[in-house]
């Protein structure tokens, strides 16, 4: 892997260091959204924002048609642009493990990290929350750092009924994620951005993971949903 490493922040393939990664087998995902719910419950994620979410697209043409689910989350990039762009180092990468985390007490809310993330993995927490006093700062998936550091897997992985999400140390050649990444064809989202994402997909079709032309002429349903979403976010 050394030939791929261009910056000192990258930890994949570095001896003696862990580099956690997630493999999502899209063939196994049934779109039950349990991962989304588990994540919401684990972190008290407010309404309207998500650390992980599962969009879907209907692909094919009747009768050969299916729903393609695409679980999404922070890609915990090996070369994360959000870490570079934060002016006050509120976002940082844990060297041993590769987690990209957030220092809430330091975040000024300039949203530069949100602008730099190619995966829309970051969101602004609302001003008022019922049970948590972390407000008006940027938040994101942590790969459940608090659970992983205690030997558990992330909440979304734990709850996935189809075992679609697999988590582990990519630097450990004996781990399941290493086996899957090394032996099966996997895809990452937007590899052209050079971020070296560490969420790998099995069975993703780049034609459907790219930004589509429907944006230019979105259906009325999509527009109505969008208007409602933005209204809720701003209220």
């Amino acid at each position, binding site marked *: 892997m050394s030939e791929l490493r261009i910056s000192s922040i990258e930890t994949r393939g570095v001896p003696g260091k862990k580099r956690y990664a997630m493999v999502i087998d899209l063939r196994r995902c049934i779109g039950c959204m349990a991962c989304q719910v588990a994540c919401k419950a684990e972190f008290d994620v407010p309404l309207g924002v998500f650390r992980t979410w599962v969009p879907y697209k209907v692909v094919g043409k009747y009768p050969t048609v299916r729903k393609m689910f695409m679980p999404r989350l922070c890609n915990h990039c090996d070369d994360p642009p959000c870490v570079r762009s934060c002016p006050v180092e509120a976002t940082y990468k844990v060297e041993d493990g590769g987690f990209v985390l957030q220092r809430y007490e330091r975040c000024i809310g*300039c949203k530069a990290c949100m*602008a730099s993330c190619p995966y829309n993995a970051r969101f602004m927490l609302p001003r008022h929350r019922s049970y948590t006093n972390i407000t008006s700062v940027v938040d994101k998936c942590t790969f459940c750092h608090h659970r992983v550091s205690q030997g558990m897997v992330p909440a979304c992985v734990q709850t996935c009924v189809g075992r679609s999400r697999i988590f582990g140390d990519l630097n450990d050649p004996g781990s399941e994620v290493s086996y899957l990444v090394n032996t099966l064809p996997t895809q990452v989202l937007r590899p052209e951005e050079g971020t070296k994402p560490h969420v790998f997909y099995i069975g993703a079709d780049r034609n459907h993971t790219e930004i589509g032309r429907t944006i230019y002429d979105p259906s009325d349903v999509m527009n109505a949903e969008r208007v409602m979403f933005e209204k809720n976010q701003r209220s």
Partner: protein
Amino acid sequence: MGDYTVFHLMPWSGAYAIYFFTIGISAALFFFSTRSWFPTGQALVPIRTSAAYVSFALLAISGLLLIGDLSQPMRFLNIMNPAYLNFASPLAWGGLNLISFGIASVLYIKALKQNDEKNAKFFGVIGSLLALGLPVYTGFDLTVHQNRPVWNTPLMPVLFVAMSLVSGSAVAAMLAKGKEAALAKLRWHMLWEGGAVGVMLIALLGTTAYGGSGSELTFILMTSGSLGLIFVGLGILLGTAAPIAVLLTSFGRQHAGILAAAGLLLVGGMALRYSILIGGQIVQTYF
């Protein structure tokens, strides 16, 4: 049809475009005020003081706009904490640039009030270099996001410098009132810098149209889509091409013509900044 996605908000709202606009004008006005101390800028002497004051007022407004746009406004102090600063971020450099430009402006205005030519020249040159840094850093703010169509081009800092000079000369022309020599000098600035913006916009449109699926969609949205009227209508046609055409006519050499062109350039400057800022974010909200 039948697709479901979670929508995302644009991180940087239109308020940032106002900041880009005011900070660009502030930087250029400071430069024109300083230029008036040197032999090649003698024509600008009548606007020396007013340009310096307006520049400082706009700097203060820009600072407040920037702080007000933070979700944690009081933590703007974090950007001055050396233990926190991340020099890989253009925002960190921008924060330092703004503060140092503010200090240089105060010292320059003090020397100006005392009619201390030596110090005014000294702080003017230092301040002008820092002023140049303001549009450069705002351009870099956008450029560094490699996933953003329109923004991610080395053209952006240069375009912002040119737009800053155009908008600044337009405001300076309004400050010059009936001073013929100053107006003639500023007309020259508006014409050439407006032309430079026009050339860069053509290059920007070209690279955006041929830049991959996200860029191509952004090009469509910016030209014939939701931003078409603002970007092409107000920004390119009414705010860049029309004032250049006016300035080239005999009417454009008269006081009224120069002021009309200045007004159009200001409309164009705001429209271009807004559409470039928003244009780079639309497509991403659907990803």
